[in-house]
């Protein structure tokens, strides 16, 4: 394994994954997860797996963060609403 590109992509993915866990605010975590999804897509492409890279790009950088953001919004809205009626 002498391909430095693979090493760089692997380390980038590891760093993004660590950041995604370390960021505690779910709204920001969704953004970091989108970055992680993109980094994974790059890694998969470098590992000669364009199919997986494509699906990771569509799912990891768009769909999952979107679902997380919508859930955060729903939960926040409920908590705000509760504060108002109290």
């Amino acid at each position: 394994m002498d391909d430095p590109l693979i090493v760089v992509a692997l380390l980038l993915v590891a760093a993004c994954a660590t950041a995604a866990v370390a960021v505690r605010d779910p709204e920001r975590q969704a953004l970091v997860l989108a970055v992680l999804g993109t980094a994974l897509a790059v890694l998969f492409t470098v590992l000669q797996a364009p199919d997986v890279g494509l699906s990771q790009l569509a799912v990891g950088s768009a769909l999952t963060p979107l679902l997380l953001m919508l859930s955060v919004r729903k939960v926040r809205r409920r908590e705000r609403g509760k504060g108002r009626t109290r």
Partner: protein
Amino acid sequence: MMSVLPYLVAVWIFLTGCYGIVTSRNLIHAVGCLAVCQSATYVLLLAVGYRDGGTAPVFSDVEPGSRPVVDPVVQALALTDVVVGATVTALLLALVIQVSKRHGTVDPDELSELRG
């Protein structure tokens, strides 16, 4: 060392995700950490299937047999799981929303206090 680096990265991602799930104070955050754990399995699978100097196993523009190709089996496994995993994440988030409706909180610690 270099021949096991991708596997070690997969182990690192998986354990970080587990740490995140256990120490999470917010169920939505925990679901995000579970997504991190999932990505460790993709890294592991694709690392097992990689071949030095190999190209993608797609023969629409490569003459069959002219170049070595990487393992397509693990790629197919990872590919289906990426999409199906996202829908399972959606199901988990739906459960989180339901929990928030029922109990008014998404903090796992407060939830266990409510039950006890």
